[in-house]
């Protein structure tokens, strides 16, 4: 190949590579755009501060060293209601194994949340995210939205909805974030 031909080949290859990179980036970014607001597995779980029904303050970073099952729920969400008994059971058995459950209500009236807690006899901390601040950070849209946080403070798994979950699944969740 002559010098000129070689030069042309290099130039054309370079241009095509640049174009390919631009197109590739655009497609990649587009595929990820739905995940942009969400917290992804492997990232550090954003810290937050909320009060529970008894008035105690819970700060997420205080739980470092323990696993945290962070659950966003609402009383008007039927799947949330059905998973609460499972959560209560596994909470009791894993409390001594260093795994906590923090249930964040999405900002309903205290009256309603209280009634719910009493009705289902829930023993784990119930926090109310009155201003929808924490939901915003965690990119919570559909309920229930659960985030499994490991003892290192990093997100291990995100579960949205619970269509086919059994009690054993919940056990498995707790097991996976045991310190």
């Amino acid at each position: 190949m002559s010098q000129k031909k070689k030069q042309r080949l290099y130039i054309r290859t370079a241009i095509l590579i640049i174009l390919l990179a631009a197109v590739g980036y655009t497609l990649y970014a587009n595929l990820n755009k739905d995940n942009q607001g969400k917290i992804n597995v492997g990232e550090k779980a954003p810290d937050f501060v909320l009060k529970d029904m008894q008035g105690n303050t819970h700060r997420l970073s205080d739980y470092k060293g323990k696993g945290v099952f962070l659950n966003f729920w609402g009383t008007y969400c039927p799947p949330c209601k059905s998973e609460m008994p499972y959560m209560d059971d596994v909470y009791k058995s894993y409390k001594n194994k260093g795994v906590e459950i923090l249930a964040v209500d999405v900002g309903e009236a205290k009256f309603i949340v209280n009634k719910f807690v009493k009705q289902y006899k829930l023993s784990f901390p119930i926090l109310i995210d009155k201003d929808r601040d924490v939901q915003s950070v965690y990119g919570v849209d559909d309920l229930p939205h659960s985030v499994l946080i490991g003892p290192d403070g990093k997100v291990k798994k995100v579960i949205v909805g619970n269509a086919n979950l059994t009690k054993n699944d919940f056990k498995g969740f707790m097991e996976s974030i045991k310190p």
Partner: protein
Amino acid sequence: MNDMKCECGHVNPVGTILCESCGKALTENAQKEKLHDMRYEGSARRSQTYNKTIIDKIWNFFSSVKVGVWLIVLTLVASSLGTIFPQKDMLPTNLTPEEYYHKEYGWVGQLWYKLGFEDLYGSWWYLLLIAAIGVSLVICSLDRFIPLHRALKNQRVTRHEGFMKRQRLYIDAAITGDQSFAKVKERLKEKHYRVKEEHGNLFAEKNRFSRWGPYVNHIGLIIFLIGAMLRFVPGMYVDELLWIREGETKVIPGTHEKYLLKNNKFILDTYQKGKDNEAFNQALDRVGTVAKNFQTNVTLYKRKEGALPGESGKLAKVKDDEIKVNHPLEFAHYSVYQMDYKPNELKTMTLQLENKKTKKTFGQVKIDLFNPKDVYDLQKGYKVKLIGYYPNFTGFAKDGEPQSSSPIPDNPAFLFRMYSPEHPKGEVSFVAIRQNVEPLGNNDYKMSFAGIETRNVSALTVHKDLTLWILAVGGAIFMIGVIQGAYWNHRRIWLQRKEGNVLIAAHTNKNYYGIKKELAAILDGTGLPVPKDQQEGKKEKEKEKEV
């Protein structure tokens, strides 16, 4: 393959069809042509010779204008498909997209959804089409501009005879005494031609710059596409919706939880007959109310350094503002616009305890629909306990339990236990809007409706767009290129004396009608013949054949 040296001495790149300098036909095909294809000056545009490597194959594919046009047609058809049903971002939020398309549009809607058209303009294959158009733009332009520029730069005054003969406008005639090149030169200069002279031959050219117009507008389009692509980079583009009630303080979406907004007051003004321009009275009679202005008076807060979500009180006030339609709140590259509103959302409901027989009332209960109390003490001996609250009552479940579908009090319902001296254990009553159910038998007392308080909910959109200036620059360059290419024509006229003959040829990239008129005006009274349109001769012959 070697570079092609023409008999005139100029060295042309491989694949050149007409010599860049003198215009001699360098290939057999070109020599056989009656009229040359002058679109790219016969320059080495398409090199079939190196179609060998895959790089060349890809390059040649995208350098085809036919391919480019097909891409545009495909994109057009695809774009139209997305307009058949509303896109998923435009749907009401009470149903999932899948449910909505099926319910609203039947099996056609379901099929449309299954094909992935509900987010068509964000789908990977649509973006791929647009990207392909972008690639085609780049490669088409490079492939043509470089050779064309070379050719127009290297052209010389005295063209090869074959070149002249094969121009669309051409004539040759014997030299006579009353022909005046000098007069022609004067006329050409008057018409703003740049005239070059060599050995007594003339070359006149004007408006070469307009040939670059299409390439300029392609550059504009490419910049525009780059701007659009940059919108995917995190932080460059934000477009969110925020519903906020009067009195609420909420995080502004898209600001990474750094900024919060408090809705102090929502104001809605309508046009009033008698107060506003009386010319509007007729229209107001026909239509009813027309909004004149609606705005949200807000306070902007910034979360203090180190403050965490959920922590209240750690906010620093930034400023107050009144967000009116078309007058956004602006801060840190963000703009918050007043978009919509929901007037008169229920805030509190007041009911009174009433004895059904005597119709006497024993006090009022004002329930905050966002934070109701457990117990409401009335006068001595009378008390109302709230045992159940259903902000958006949707009906009874199978077991009789009232259901609520959301925490927004659009259809509030209550389960009361009413305590009176006659009923120390209380009577149970279920109260909803236009519905009173007494589950445990007839009661003596009832809770009757006494009033409501409402407040307005404001809808604001949050915008951040760091790509806007890029799009503007791309758009402006595009327009400049279009104007540059559209409103001027590149015209060239050659006059030569050769062996007792005078040869005149002319070329333009568009509007032959115009250059013919100009030629007639230039040559009028100079003794020189006006070039004939060699293409028209052909066309007329064809038309004759048809009839």
